[in-house]
């Protein structure tokens, strides 16, 4: 019996999901893009969503749950309005990534690895973002910010606060 989760999704998301599935030689292969589309729409992958995907792709619950729980960037807790991921890996660390993190934590009032209480900011570490030559780097929603200098973070902090105060950011197109 189809659950009603699908009604929560935007029509564009549903249309996208319908388009994605038949492109793959096997339905199960569409699991990741379907999860991505749902997360972009809802900013979370809920239990209802998982059950809905199970039916959509003719899978067992464990097939979906094992994938959701394996990949770090599928989230079962809602992501804040502004999602900040600061690279902590060596090249960025050599240029002061950890100092950047200290300042961001303080200025944003958000502890590393958490979402602020009002749900506006998620601040996390990321592992190497493939932007090591211009580190420290951070992925803020869809945008890569590079050369984050500990003594010149004003503009980035202002940008994060703006996004956190605004509406839900334009989602990634799955």
């Amino acid at each position: 019996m189809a659950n009603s989760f699908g009604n929560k999704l935007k029509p564009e998301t549903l249309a996208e999901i319908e388009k994605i599935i038949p492109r793959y030689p096997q339905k199960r292969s569409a699991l990741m893009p379907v999860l991505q589309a749902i997360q972009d729409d809802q900013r979370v992958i809920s239990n209802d969503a998982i059950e809905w995907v199970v039916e959509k792709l003719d899978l067992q619950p464990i097939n979906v749950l094992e994938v959701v729980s394996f990949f770090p960037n599928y989230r079962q807790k809602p992501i804040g309005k502004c999602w900040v991921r600061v690279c902590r890996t060596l090249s960025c660390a050599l240029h002061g990534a950890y100092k950047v993190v200290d300042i961001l934590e303080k200025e944003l009032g958000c502890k590393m690895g958490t979402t602020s209480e009002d749900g506006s900011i998620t601040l996390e570490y990321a592992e190497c973002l493939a932007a090591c030559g211009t580190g420290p780097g951070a992925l803020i929603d869809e945008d890569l910010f590079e050369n984050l200098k500990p003594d010149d973070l004003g503009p980035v902090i202002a940008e994060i606060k703006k996004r956190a105060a605004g509406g839900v950011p334009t989602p990634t197109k799955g």
Partner: protein
Amino acid sequence: MAAKETRILLKHADDPNYSTSIDSYLAVGGYKMLEQAVTMKPELIRAEVKAAGLRGRGGAGFPCGVKWDLVDRKSGKPIYLICNCDESEPGTFKDRQLVHKDPHQLIEGIMISAYANNVALAFIYIREEMPKGARILRQAIEEARAKGYVGENICGSGYSCDIIVHRGAGAYICGEETGLIESLEGKRAYPRIKPPYFPAVLGLYNCPTIVNNVETLCNVVHICRMGSVEYAKIGRPNNTGTRIWCVSGHVQRPGYYEVAGITMGELLYDLCGGPLPGRKFKAIVPGGGSMKILRYDERFKGKNPDGSEYEYGVDDIPLDFDGVAAAGSMSGSAGMMVMDDSVDIMEALANLVGFYSHESCGQCTPCREGSLWAKKITWRMCRGDAREQDLDTLVSMAGNIGGRTVCPMGFSTTWPVQSYVGKFREEIEAKVRENKVGMRGDIRLIEK
């Protein structure tokens, strides 16, 4: 004379008048090679790629033409091609440039390779953290489709092949080809055991599958354009073509440099401007975080053709697969991380061990437990909480990970631990003896 770049793949990438649109690419002669390729016999293209000596740019340096020869063409099953754009090895950011700045070059490379191997469907597996890259690629594919370079009846040849852009979700192990395939099948990215799961025979959906790196596939276009003979003249024998080296860390001009036939010293000084003012180079990780570290003052022994020996240093290392291998490390993904004398080598090790323990997929006990164990030990060493036996435990334990797991990722803990401790033992022992937090202190490389 100062060394220069040899820009072939990146020829247009940073031209302000060049864009990711198909018109830009067509204006510089783009898709001409695909038009020509589809009139040729596929095996002729494969022979050219093999004769060019192109080696895989993803990490292992396996000859591309040999890989294509291993594809099972008698099974009657469809053949798949996967372009590996998971680019996650610490220090590596070359595929990012190729995808974001010249997507059509990659698409042409994929389509020629697909045609050459009778591929029915191709995939680009791109890491989640490159959302813009995924969008650029999708748009480029649609542009190419509209002009008949992707999809049905390519260039009127009757050959058809589509490309699907598939996004990852933040797991480094999806860069490993069989983990990638599992992920593409909608499962956890647990690597498969070889044998029997060689992708060329039992890959995606247990069909023959080719997995190649972004840079490798871009090179195919230029092999077609130049011909294998001309192409093979670039670089040294067995190390043909250019490589895009990514330099990060303590140099004056970090960045990506497409070069051929130069030395490590030429890259570090001529192109990257040498160390920061008042600093000295201390250590270099040549080919991505997994690879063994080089001490900058290390000396190596080479053999002359007459059998006599000569000595050389880090600056003299020929910057290619064989050159770096002869110095006891690997050029890997060409992600070079440079550290100067301000760096506490123990913290650098702890940082990378932290990466590999976070990224272990958890399938094999030695890698899952060993990398975490290594992280705990190295982190407490950096936090002034070391135990007397820690260093020995660390080294002996790390030696039992690589080679005892399904995929080669175990070595990503083994090699750094063995080489950092092996080459900087005095510094590390002194740190353990003093057992204080942040001895060098000015840059912190792990969490407090």
